[in-house]
């Protein structure tokens, strides 16, 4: 299978590989996929008091496209608010990486991982989904 230049770049030089302490209150963790399906993505975000994602990490078991999709997701999430990060769509990831049709599921998994990490963070802080997170964060603080 021929991979796009961008997939190869993310695969060979993955951004933000690693883990945060999942028990840290400022960390949200999302893990999606299943080993039996050949893809598991773990995506973590570190959210500051302003409700902005100041850092992100990933670990992925999967093909080159899955690794590239999660690497790109961490790059795009950094510096965004939760509400902004939530707007990242799988189609944007697929387009940016020029994923072939058989690899679209990798970008879908990345979107799921983003949503799962955000949901985990919100759960920890008792935040309702899709509200103004910064305002909520201030209120909690």
């Amino acid at each position, binding site marked *: *299978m021929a*991979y796009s230049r961008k997939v190869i770049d993310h*695969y060979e030089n*993955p951004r933000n*590989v690693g*883990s945060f302490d999942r028990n840290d209150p400022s960390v949200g963790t999302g*893990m*999606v*996929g*299943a*080993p*039996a*399906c*050949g*893809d*598991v*993505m*773990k995506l973590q975000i570190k959210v500051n008091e302003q409700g902005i994602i100041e850092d992100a990490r990933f*670990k*992925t*078991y*999967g*093909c*080159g496209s*899955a*690794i590239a999709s999660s690497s790109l997701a961490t790059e795009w999430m950094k510096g965004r608010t939760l509400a902004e990060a939530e707007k990242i769509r799988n189609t944007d990831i697929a387009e940016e990486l020029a994923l072939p049709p*058989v690899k679209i*599921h990798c970008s879908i*998994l990345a979107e799921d991982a983003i949503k799962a990490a955000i949901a985990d963070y919100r759960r920890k802080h008792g935040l309702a989904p899709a509200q103004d997170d910064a305002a909520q964060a201030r209120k909690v603080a």
Partner: protein
Amino acid sequence: MKSTLKLPIYLDYSATTPVDPRVAEKMIPYLTEHFGNPASRSHVFGWKAEEAVEEARAQVAALVNCDPREIVWTSGATESINLALKGVAEFHKTKGRHLVTVKTEHKATLDTMRELERRGFEVTYLDVDGEGLLDLDRLEAVLRKDTILVSVMYVNNEIGVIQDIAAIGELCRSRGILFHVDAAQATGKVDIDLGALKVDLMSFSAHKTYGPKGVGALFIRRKPRVRLEPQIHGGGHERGFRSGTLATHQIVGMGEAFRIARLEMGAERERIRMLASRLLAGLREIEQVYINGSLERRVPHNLNASFSFVEGESLIMAVKDIAVSSGSACTSASLEPSYVLRALGRSDELAHSSIRFTLGRFTTEEEIDYTVSHLKAKVAKLREMSPLWEMYKEGIDLDTVQWAAH
């Protein structure tokens, strides 16, 4: 340090082999100079071509110890298998409509069997044990009065295990059931003696044994005579079994390749056995590596390994200096884990994490050493990136995790 190492390293000899330079050299005059049609009986061009075809037929027969008249040229093992299975089924359908094969067979067999099912035949697909081997009692248990054919491959293309063809042959013969063997991966790797084996039909390929692509052969036993319905009509070549002008240069190539295989197989196998044990020793230095398929009943040319917590396709992408495959070339376009490894009872996760290394005539010790060190570094890098590896290292049993299958 001086090095003769050339990258990438080819370790996919079970997908195909390069044509041996000696074979290529022998083929060339039959493209330009001796271009005659072997079926032309009226002039020297035809006679010359026919002579070359018959010499090649004798060379193929010599490798497997059969009568040259039992060899029919085809376009490759896939066509041979199609002719054997469909030909026997169509000819003997009034006698019975039941056929038996194994779940780990090549797609050429499995897809042909599926087609026969569509034509109204009934097929039993046997399981193998955890080593990839067919249990004889299991085979015996499914044989019926209306079973007309059993088809089993000699050497498995994905995991390299060798089935007990002699014993299966005895069983089939005692029941009066025809026995076809797919030997595409066996020639030049194991000793094949059709004088002793009770095999009725055997399929061969040239390009897995340093011959050209596009040519193969089917062995059709004369004593006791095996009858089958031809699948390609027009001209009655090859005693009516397979019509079509013979590809003289391809056939010459297959003959020369099989001649060399017969002469050099013994020494080559020992050299490759030494290289394979070197590779195996290297792989075993990596944590959580599993070898798929029996290590005892196996050709040394094949090593199929699963690297836990690393996904196969990404590993193949990572080891770009090494040309390997995750299973067979025929199925590598699909996202499904190997059906062969699943038939061995391997978990989907391990089936997704497998790499097939196949060694051959031109593999060197230096290439093996490079492969091992390259692989160690890449597996370590991918595991560093793998959430499953992290969980394993934290002592989490992955089987107890509730995964959201997608």
